[in-house]
């Protein structure tokens, strides 16, 4: 009959009731992580607008507005989380609902539970309570097109989904991941502990009551217990010997990474990126890992009219694109100069010396170029340098176009800490690209996004979660006090020679501020800071002021951010309201207060 339909080039939702369908559905949930971890949207949402960073001179308009807390519901960055979590949640709903019947292994269903909880946790910490019913009923696989939406409360999101799902995931997931980068029991414990901790803080900060009648202290205790259980039985996971090893490109997929948003250099298709991929707009539908250029300063600046550093797919170089800039306080407070001899985390996070690579280009004509003072710069010679202090600032001369300072007897350009600007700053080394196929300067992949996995959870953070729970009053086990836990991390940071120095420098009493600073040193730029500061109620205190120089200026200015209590939640984005059939009054109530 010519009126019957049989599609042949597309899949229909029935496929979701088969084992193959469910397994590929789970893969799609992992793929959703790439929307969030790697692109600029999340970096603006979580790193800019805190003490860790401000906007760079290539910033996007929405990034500027997030950084300055001039946030409206039309801000494009909000969609990074709002638009990309619900599809993953729905897929998880489908897997959880249909998995048993289709005969899917329980551990795969547990992965779906993990990700449903993970996505809800991201939502609730960003926006507060969000819908549990996507259209077909609470936590049901949505097959009903509905343009009506109701928000659940924060308590409901935690107690109906995040806790039970993660508790199940802890029980049912294997410690050893099914595949590289797949989730696992330890990651589930990590996030369950963090969720308990965050909820405990929330109850304490807001004075709200838990629907299950538990107190914040009880949640701190649960957080501590789960985190310590993970630390004590970490399965195949373990801390790396040195801090640098954690983030070294050649050491990707190391034992410290509990969960990542994976990427590959083997295929643009499977990496979901394109050659030359540029663009930083959160709404431009890009899933490639652009962390490698979001915080990379302009090293292509001409020195004495010559360009010495070409883009290159190695961790120290990459591709410059100044969306986000570390603040001066990062170099004075977070990573104090006095600690840098013993604490390897500064040098394991930033690039402070930029070296020439121009002679490695295939197009190099053999001419040795001259830097400042007419001095030769050969490959490997310093082109730019960020000295640790302002000691030499007075003796610096200014280059003719006023972009950097230089010494009268050195070939390279210099910015002292107080000269760090939105244009020139120590780039974040951790995120630099790493490839093995072709790393020629000016080579074919110089403009590509990073093909490295972006870390989402590390075992080191599990220690800091446990420590934070302990600081908040959880009863600790022997040898697992807040200080014990922090010291494990600090000792490793001092490795190989300064572990003991680091432990010796730890204050007698660990308070929340100390944990927060330790978190920033350990996990700088890793999409966590805004969440750390809002969780602990420290946003105004830590992010209210920062110092930076504007582009081509050496005038350090301290800026104030007008942070209000309502800024602890982000506005529900306009795209939600634009597609909702709720009444205007319901829409008004749907939005978070203050927006």
């Amino acid at each position, binding site marked *: 009959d010519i009126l019957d*339909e049989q599609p042949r080039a597309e899949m229909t939702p029935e496929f*979701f009731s088969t084992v193959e369908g469910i397994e590929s559905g789970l893969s799609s949930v*992992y793929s959703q992580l790439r929307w969030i971890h790697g692109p600029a949207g999340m970096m603006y949402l979580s790193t800019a607008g805190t003490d860790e960073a401000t906007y760079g001179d290539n910033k996007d308009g929405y990034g500027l507005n997030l950084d*300055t807390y001039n946030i409206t519901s039309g801000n494009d960055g909000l969609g990074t989380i709002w638009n990309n979590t619900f599809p993953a949640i729905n897929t998880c709903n489908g897997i959880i609902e249909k998995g048993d019947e289709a005969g899917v292994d329980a551990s795969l269903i547990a992965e779906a539970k993990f990700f449903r909880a993970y996505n809800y946790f991201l939502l609730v910490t960003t926006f507060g309570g969000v819908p549990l019913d996507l*259209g077909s009923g609470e936590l049901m696989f949505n097959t009903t097109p509905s343009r009506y939406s109701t928000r659940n409360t924060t308590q409901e999101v935690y107690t109906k989904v995040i806790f039970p799902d993660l508790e199940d995931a802890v029980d049912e997931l294997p410690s050893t991941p099914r595949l590289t980068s797949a989730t696992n029991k330890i990651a589930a414990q990590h996030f369950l502990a963090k969720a308990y901790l965050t909820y405990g803080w929330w109850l304490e900060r807001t004075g709200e009551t838990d629907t299950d009648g538990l107190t914040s202290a009880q949640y701190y205790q649960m957080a501590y217990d789960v985190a310590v259980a993970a630390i004590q039985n970490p399965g195949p996971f373990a801390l790396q010997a040195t801090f640098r090893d954690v983030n070294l490109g050649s050491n990707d997929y190391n034992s410290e990474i509990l969960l990542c948003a994976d990427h590959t250099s083997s295929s643009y298709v499977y990496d979901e990126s394109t050659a030359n991929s540029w663009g930083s707009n959160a709404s431009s539908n890009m899933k490639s890992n652009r962390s490698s250029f979001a915080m990379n300063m302009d090293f292509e600046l001409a020195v004495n009219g010559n360009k010495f550093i070409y883009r290159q797919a190695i961790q120290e170089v990459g591709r410059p694109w100044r969306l986000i800039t570390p603040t001066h306080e990062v170099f004075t407070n977070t990573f104090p100069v006095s600690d840098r001899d013993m604490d390897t985390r500064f040098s394991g996070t930033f690039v402070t010396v930029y070296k020439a690579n121009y002679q490695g280009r295939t197009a190099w004509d053999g001419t040795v170029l001259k830097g400042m003072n007419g001095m030769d710069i050969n490959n490997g010679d310093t082109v730019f340098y960020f000295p640790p202090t302002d000691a030499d600032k007075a003796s610096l001369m200014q280059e003719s176009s006023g972009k950097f300072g230089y010494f009268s007897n050195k070939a390279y350009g210099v910015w002292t800490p107080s000269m760090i600007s939105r244009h020139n700053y120590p780039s974040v080394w951790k995120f630099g690209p790493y490839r093995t196929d072709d790393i020629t300067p000016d080579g074919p992949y110089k403009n590509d996004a990073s093909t490295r996995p972006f870390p989402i959870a590390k075992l080191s953070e599990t220690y800091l979660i446990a420590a934070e729970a302990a600081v908040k009053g959880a009863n600790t086990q022997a040898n697992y006090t807040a200080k014990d836990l922090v010291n494990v991390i600090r000792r490793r940071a001092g490795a190989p020679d300064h572990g003991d120095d680091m432990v010796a420098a730890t204050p007698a009493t660990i308070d929340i501020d100390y944990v927060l600073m330790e978190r920033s040193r350990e996990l700088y730029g890793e999409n966590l800071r805004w969440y750390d500061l809002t969780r602990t109620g420290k946003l105004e205190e830590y992010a209210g002021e920062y110092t930076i120089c504007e582009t081509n200026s050496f005038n350090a200015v301290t800026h104030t951010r007008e942070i209000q209590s309502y800024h602890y939640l982000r506005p529900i984005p306009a795209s939600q*309201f634009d597609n909702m059939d709720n009444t205007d009054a319901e829409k008004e109530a749907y939005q978070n207060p203050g927006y």
Partner: protein
Amino acid sequence: TASSFSQQSKFNLQLKNTTIKDVFDELKSQSDYQFFYSNDDFDVSRRVDVDLNDASIENVLEQILGDMDVSYKIVDKSVIISKSDVVWSFDQKQQQQQVSVSGTVTDGGGQPLPGVTVVEKGTTNGTITDFDGKYVLRDIAATSTLIFSFVGMENIEMALDGRSLIDVVMQEQTIGLEEVVAIGYGVQRKEAVTGSVASVGGEELRAVASSNISQSLQGRVAGVEMMQTSSRPGASMQIRIRGTRSLTASNDPLIVLDGIPFAGSLQDINPSDIKSLDILKDASATAVYGSRGANGVIIITTFKGDSKDKEPVVTYSGYYGVKSLMNKYPMMNADEFITWREEAIKNGASWQYGVDEDKSVSTDWQDLMFETGMVTSHDVGLSGSTKGGGYSFGAGYYDETSVLPGQEYERYSLRANFDQKLGERVKVGVSSISSYGIVTGETSNILGTVLSLTPITNPYNADGSIKTGSLAINNQDIGLYYNPLMVDQLGDKWRERRKNFASYNSFYGEVNIVDGLKYRMNLGLNYRQSNYGKYNGAETPYNASTISNAQIENVLTTNWAVENLLYYDKTFAEKHTLGLVAMYSAEQTESNTSNMAGQDVAADFLQYYNFGLLSDDGEITVDPEKQIYYKRGLTSAMARATYNYDGKYMATATVRSDGSSVLASGKKWHTYPALSVGWLASSEEFMQSVKWLNFLKFRVGYGQTSNQAIQPYQTLGGLSTNYYNFGSRNVSGYYVSNLPNYNLGWEYSTNWNLAMEFHALDNRLSGTLEYYTQTTKDVLVAQSLPPTSGVTESFMTNIGKTQNKGVELSLNGNVIKDLNGWSWDVGVNFFVNRNKIKELASGQQYDKGNGWFVGEPIDVIYDFKKIGIWQKGEENEVTKYEGSTGEVGMIKVEYTGDYDAQGNPTRQIGQGTTLEDDDRQILGSVEPDFQGGFNTRVGYKGFDLSVIGSFKSGGILVSALHSQTSYLNMNNGRRGQVKIDYWTEDNPTNAYPKPYGPEVTNNPKYASTLSYFDASYVKVSTITLAYNFKQDWLQKLKLNKLRLYVTAQNPFVFGSKFYKETGLDPQPNSNSSDTSTQAVADNAVVTNRIQVVGYNTPATRNFLFGLNVTF
């Protein structure tokens, strides 16, 4: 003698409502009388009643001509009828210097024409041609002019000029009341049509030289709007008949080619093959096509052979033209740009001078890139007859290039029609059109690079050679733009070509079962293959990447249709004429698209020809979204009755049932009726005294139609694919992206059409006035869902109601008719369509995601309203509205919220969530207040001059060039910049913001508000001056017809503010979804339903020389 002969003939006549011409025919059949008259002297199609027995010829003539201002004379067996004021030379017997003249009269097909009246002008000296078309006229003045007239033919005047042999070829009249129009599954005399049908002759279409008839139709028919979706050679047009009604389903009209619904693309049809085109506009007319005709129907009839036993006729027509740029894009020159960038830097922009830039350089990239394009067309036709049949063949070639390198459209076309009678009762015919089109450069757009480069960038090395690397147009954008002058040296590094091969074939067989009852079968078999390939070598102006890429796509579409028809025609009791048609039909279309892309091709010369030969790091991509398969079917039954009473009252009733595969089970079938009635008021007795009014008809039509023009498989939901890697293991993922709708059904429209047609002042002024309403309910809508649904794509549903109302007026006037060799015709049409969304889903007042608002037109612009620029002194004010990032010099938009007691706004701009507190507002519609077209033709002897144009008043024109997605209005000194009147402290304009104010993703905040212009314009699209060679010259050349012409296209634009500011064509050149032309306006604001000005191939002025010959 004459009188005795006449007195001997007695007639018995009982004729009701019969044209005078038919009465004459009846008289001729009863006697040997011949009738001589000029069509111009009186209306032979006027209907009369005759009831006489045993009457003389004079009695009959008195009765039928009695009240008309004519007199007659009977000479021998000839009856000569003329205006009363003619002085009969028979009576005066004036004899002057006399000569004799003779000759042969033939028709356009070379057949002799018997019965043609040949009269010496100004006298009643005359004769008629004999059976062989020959005539002899004796004793006429040597200085006289002969007038040849024949019913249905154009009169010819020919001065003797001393000749004694004058042969003439008479051409058929193309206009007049006897015109027949196609109404779908049949034809009808124009005067009997009750639906809204507009007809355009092939000649009129060809008055505008173009590759595609939709370009020729622009401005020709009231209610029919053509919009170009791209200005490149070979691009298609968007056709809308009486506005837009569906929100998501197709609004494209149905094309019917030689009786079969056309399954292809209009660009496959060579305009030279078209004999006539009829457009069915209202539901009562389109009802026979059911759901296929919901958006109007365009019936195309190609040339057919003539079975009237004619000699073969060969025609050639061709033209060649040059295309030159109308105006350059309005970019800043070097001085303007330097001032601009300095200002941006002063305001904090980080865009400094690049190494390829030099303030002493002044490069006009557009001058360097634009060249002269050309267009040429050649068509040969052959038609003739066989015994009981006729044939017509045609072959055509068309080639067009652009003012930009690498853009071309070429087409070869073939046509064959053959009809043959088999015995008395059976007739068969085939019709076939094949076309092979080649489009080069359909998406590659070098203009993006040309316009983005700064005017201070030097394209040349010091030695004068062309720089071949990338150009640094500031200190940071390195490797983004390669020198566009390289384009001529690319060789194998670039190719983009689409080849379309299409073959459209139909066959019919017709059997006369008994008198009045006829069976007909139509078979259609169509095939279209499209083969696309694109290759971009690394590091070219088309591809700044260091990696090459290639793509191929193959689309194969096949379609079949079967229609079984029964016709029954009968006249009862003389006055009742009934026509019945019944049809049962089925059709099915199947299409399959395969698409593959590859990166890092091993060598440039391989281009897109072998994806197996990639370099080691190369990769093949088979994007599942681009592999398409569908099969859709439609089964229909239809019945139509036409009834005519006495030539005065007529009615058409139609009922049709359609079953469609694309709708949900249980919702597939729908039946709908249509009815229209007409009244030919001018045939009523009481109207006979109104001499100035020759024709007056009223008609009313009502009908339902429905639409199912959505993509197949929408009722089933769908999954999308994404990808991931677990370490080195690459995997594919699926997730639900489309929700199923098990209730998806038909979209219905109810239409009313009221019309009046008239001819007045001796048929020299004619016109049609129509009013219509269309209400469409259960509109097919791709409804987007909130992100919280967890489903990323919209779902197809039936919601809401839309309405179109409109008025159409067409007037045609014959201002000067044959006055000293001069003639002048004027045609104008004017139409208004008002479209409105009446309802969305129940209770829903707006759908901002789709840009739909109840009570507003479908295509509105919903955006912030720019009210100026924040000026100096408003530093405090601006931060109240814009927050801490507000600055003077930025765009000031209207705030629609509340104020507190201190008079300060209670919130920042753009913070709202509902319609009320969202500062965006409806700025207006893209639909014009009114629009139309005009054409005029002045003839003098063999010359004629025609002018064709169109106009539009009101509506919003979106210039993506000025918008926020454009890289040309970045406002920060980064790249080439559109020339604008921008704000500085010394130039406190309210037009454009300061360089480098607050930005959203590289463009000024609220930049979209800079893109709205008034869409009004008047445009003269074509001026043609032609010369038709005189008959006697042609005789010597052994030609039947020779016409030479010159044409200017797009010579003038008036009344457009956009044209005045930018010099650009005010007609949009791109679809707003076209990424290759940076026409992608902000999707939240300008949906991709809208045509906009992007940086596409610019409009050109063309000069053509052409020639038409008939052998």
